[in-house]
């Protein structure tokens, strides 16, 4: 079990290698793994249908209780099966579809990694583990969507998907961690077992919003629905996989999974129903607006995701059953239709609906698959799509505003009905159209998946008992978090849902009939509107623009500004505590010591003249004056070593300064303009004053001299030196001195390094080897 999600990762690493070894039939080799996984998961169908759940856990970060733990119940099993089963065909399909592509191996690698991520996501029990796989799906889909990276649109779509889902993911992380904290566990199975703990927690709202942000971005709910159709830039196998069964359903999975813990509240219902409903309508309308097969399918996927969220939002028994049923149905027919679209693209060189017609003869398998899948999607009996739609209406009619909810569902379904026929029938009937290539059927790998899924749509409709017992039923129970009776059937008598279905079909037929005109009309309206896709561009422009603005404001490239901000910060640091704590300062009048005062004045006067002198040399020499006066201070207060060093150092500094400054140009008085001078002056005086105050405040208290007394006692007796300062330097604190002379030496080395390249001519040549 633990190996299940990890195996695709491991195999992924070898995919490019295998491609090189076995060539284009690599898909058949790699498909063995998902097929095996399907079989493996299928073994759990029985036990899970019997109400068993499985937990598999191993230590990951034991000290923090983060485990690599997996949980298998009806919901996760349904997803795991869809992922591995559809994945099998996708791998085959990709191998055939991208035959001869130079990067096929790499593509399959990403695809397998994605599969692993998805499996991990739906199986995870630990919130952190869940998030890990959640983000992995974003990353791998980034790579998959950007696979045709020579196209700017692909790059944009990939980045867009990353930005939207990645951004949502971060919110989800916060939500999950908050949830873990609120519920006192990292394990979902524990957290969700008693949902009231979460629902009654003060953080409930925060958790909800954060989790929904994650789910909505991933599952392309309004207003984040725009990234999904753009992601159609990816090769069709990606669309077929990511956007039918897997990635986009991750958000739905999350909502379904969280339902026992977070669902059922009014706010949950309102938000989910509102966003889900809006997404359903928006996706369905946009689907009709488009004329590219893949885009139309993508938009219906958005709509379907909206429908699923909508249903989970309603949260009643039938609604949840409907959600699971529709999810199951959708995975099959949408997977099939995407592969059909790809097959058509592959066989004709276009996906433009207006150019496609009469392909049935040239592409018989594809046509059959498309027709069957379209029937399921349009919700006609005896396909499983019909059952799902019936259950949808059962669910909406059960909800709090049955008429409104049902109306929304009918509108959405009717639009999807039209699209289903446009995609699944229109290309195959009528007079052959004018296509770039002469239409031809692809290899087995291209159509086998579509056909299988389409046939299964029929199969599960006919044998609804199987779907009910093994797939929808256990999943719905898991979502509801409580036992329920699930009884799926094709015909339950002429009741309200059937009426709704009939309305749907009628409306759908109308839309199909007026498809062209409607599409043109919608195109005109929608394209003139501002939409979130344009908003994304504006967001990116704005973000980078903001970044540039902030950066230009702060990082001006002028040392002077950096200094100014630094000193303002320093001033704030010095003044802030004073303001906050409001302490006074008691200044004792110092004794009048003329010698100290005169030397102090000399130091002060000499230094004060530095900014005002016009002569470089005078300025340098004034530093000598400062150095000398400070040395005098050291002398006066019993620091001969300091005075000694100070004099030597100051003199040498001044000498080196003269040596260097002689080579710098004219200098002039420090003129910086009135306001600037005043500003700088005030800042300077403020810092100076604060320093003085701080120093007085500190020195007015007694100092603990224990260290110095220790040195005084030990200096001669144990370190054999009478100059205590020197003994400190070479013995008591010799490590400081060792560091200090390292500084001196390295300063010399640094200067040599500085001067070593002074004669360089090739100015901007990098110092790297060639």
């Amino acid at each position, binding site marked *: 079990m633990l190996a299940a999600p990890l195996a695709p990762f491991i195999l992924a690493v070898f995919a490019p290698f295998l491609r090189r070894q076995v060539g284009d039939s690599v898909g058949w080799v790699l498909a063995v793994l998902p097929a095996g996984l399907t079989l493996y998961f299928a073994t759990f169908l029985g036990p899970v249908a019997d109400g068993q759940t499985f937990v598999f856990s191993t230590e990951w970060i034991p000290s923090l209780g983060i485990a690599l733990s997996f949980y298998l119940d009806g919901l996760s099993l349904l997803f795991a099966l869809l992922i591995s089963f559809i994945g099998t065909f996708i791998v085959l399909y990709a191998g055939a579809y991208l035959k001869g592509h130079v990067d096929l191996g790499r593509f399959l690698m990403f695809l397998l990694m994605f599969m692993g991520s998805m499996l991990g996501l739906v199986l995870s029990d630990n919130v952190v583990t869940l998030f890990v796989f959640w983000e992995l799906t974003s990353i791998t889909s980034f790579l998959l969507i950007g696979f045709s990276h020579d196209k700017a649109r692909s790059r944009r779509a990939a*980045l867009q998907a990353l930005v939207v889902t990645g951004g949502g993911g971060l919110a989800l992380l916060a939500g999950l961690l908050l949830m873990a904290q609120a519920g006192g566990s990292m394990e979902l199975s524990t957290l969700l077992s008693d949902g009231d703990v979460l629902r009654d927690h003060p953080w409930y709202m925060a958790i909800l919003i954060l989790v929904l942000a994650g789910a909505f971005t991933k599952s392309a709910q309004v207003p984040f629905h725009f990234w999904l159709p753009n992601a159609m830039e990816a090769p069709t196998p990606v669309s077929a996989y990511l956007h039918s069964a897997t990635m986009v359903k991750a958000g739905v999975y999350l909502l379904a999974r969280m339902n026992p813990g977070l669902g059922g509240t009014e706010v949950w219902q309102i938000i989910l129903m509102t966003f889900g409903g809006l997404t359903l309508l928006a996706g369905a309308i946009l689907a009709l607006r488009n004329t590219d097969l893949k885009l139309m399918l993508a938009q219906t996927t958005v709509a379907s995701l909206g429908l699923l969220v909508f249903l989970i939002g309603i949260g009643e028994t039938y609604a949840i059953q409907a959600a699971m049923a529709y999810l199951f149905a959708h995975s099959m027919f949408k997977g099939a239709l995407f592969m059909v679209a790809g097959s058509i693209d592959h066989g004709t060189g276009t996906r433009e609906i207006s150019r496609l017609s009469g392909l049935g003869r040239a592409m018989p398998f594809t046509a059959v698959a498309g027709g069957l899948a379209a029937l399921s999607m349009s919700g006609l009996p005896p396909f499983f799509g019909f059952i799902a739609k019936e259950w949808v209406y059962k669910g909406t009619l059960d909800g709090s505003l049955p008429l409104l909810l049902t109306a929304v569902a009918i509108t959405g379904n009717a639009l999807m009905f039209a699209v289903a026929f446009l995609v699944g029938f229109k290309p195959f009937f009528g007079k052959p159209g004018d296509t770039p290539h002469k239409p031809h059927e692809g290899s087995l790998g291209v159509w086998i998946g579509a056909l299988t899924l389409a046939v299964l749509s029929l199969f599960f409709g006919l044998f609804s008992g199987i779907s009910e017992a093994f797939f929808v039923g256990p999943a719905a129970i898991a979502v509801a978090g409580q036992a329920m009776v699930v009884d799926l059937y094709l015909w339950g008598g002429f009741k309200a849902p059937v009426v709704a279905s009939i309305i749907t079909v009628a409306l759908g037929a109308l839309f199909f009939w007026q498809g062209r005109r409607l599409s043109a009309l919608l195109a005109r309206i929608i394209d003139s509107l501002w939409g979130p896709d344009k908003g994304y561009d504006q967001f990116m422009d704005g973000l980078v623009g903001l970044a540039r603005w902030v950066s230009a404001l702060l990082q001006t490239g002028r040392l002077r500004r950096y200094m100014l901000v630094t000193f303002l910060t320093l001033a704030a640091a010095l003044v802030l505590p004073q303001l906050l704590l409001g302490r006074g300062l008691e200044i004792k009048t110092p004794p009048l010591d003329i010698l100290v005062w005169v030397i102090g004045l000399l130091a*002060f006067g000499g230094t004060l003249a530095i900014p005002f002198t016009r002569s470089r040399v005078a300025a340098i020499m004034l530093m000598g004056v400062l150095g000398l006066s400070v040395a005098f201070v050291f002398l006066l*207060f*019993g620091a001969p070593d300091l005075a000694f060093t100070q004099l030597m150092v100051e003199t040498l500094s001044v000498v080196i300064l003269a040596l260097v400054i002689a*080579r710098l140009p004219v200098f002039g008085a420090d003129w910086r303009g009135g306001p600037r001078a005043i500003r*700088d002056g005030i800042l300077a005086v403020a810092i100076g004053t604060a320093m003085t105050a701080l120093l007085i405040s500190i020195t007015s208290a007694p100092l603990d001299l224990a260290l110095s007394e220790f040195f005084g006692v030990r200096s*001669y007796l144990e370190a054999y030196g009478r100059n205590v300062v020197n003994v400190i330097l070479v013995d008591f604190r010799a490590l400081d001195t060792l560091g200090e002379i390292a500084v001196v030496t390295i300063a010399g080395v640094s200067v040599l390094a500085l001067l070593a390249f002074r004669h360089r001519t090739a100015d901007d040549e990098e110092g790297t080897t060639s």
Partner: protein
Amino acid sequence: METTLAVLVGALFAISVYLLLSSSLIRLILGVFVLGNATHLLIFVTGRLTRESPPLIDSGLKVAEAGIANPLPQALILTAIVISFSLFAFLLVLSYRAYQSLGAIDTDEMRVAEPESRTPAMRGRDV
């Protein structure tokens, strides 16, 4: 006595801050020099002041007399002086080399590493 020197220290800090806020490289160097001296005096003052009795153990004595100047800050200042001197020497040569290469001593005109013109080649949406 600490108070008098505290005032001097503050004054030196103020002057050095004023110098460091200049855009002239030479003045920045002068500012660093003054800052160093101000800091060394500050350390000296934090160790409290004692007039005219250096921390030397007179011959004939085995331990230091009471009331000698505090030797620890002196040792710290010595270390600090040496370090500031080394850094100062480097700064000087750096300034010279910067002038030589960049042709400016006004730091406002030193815009090679962070160029003035930031005409963005790309919009945020461009990938």
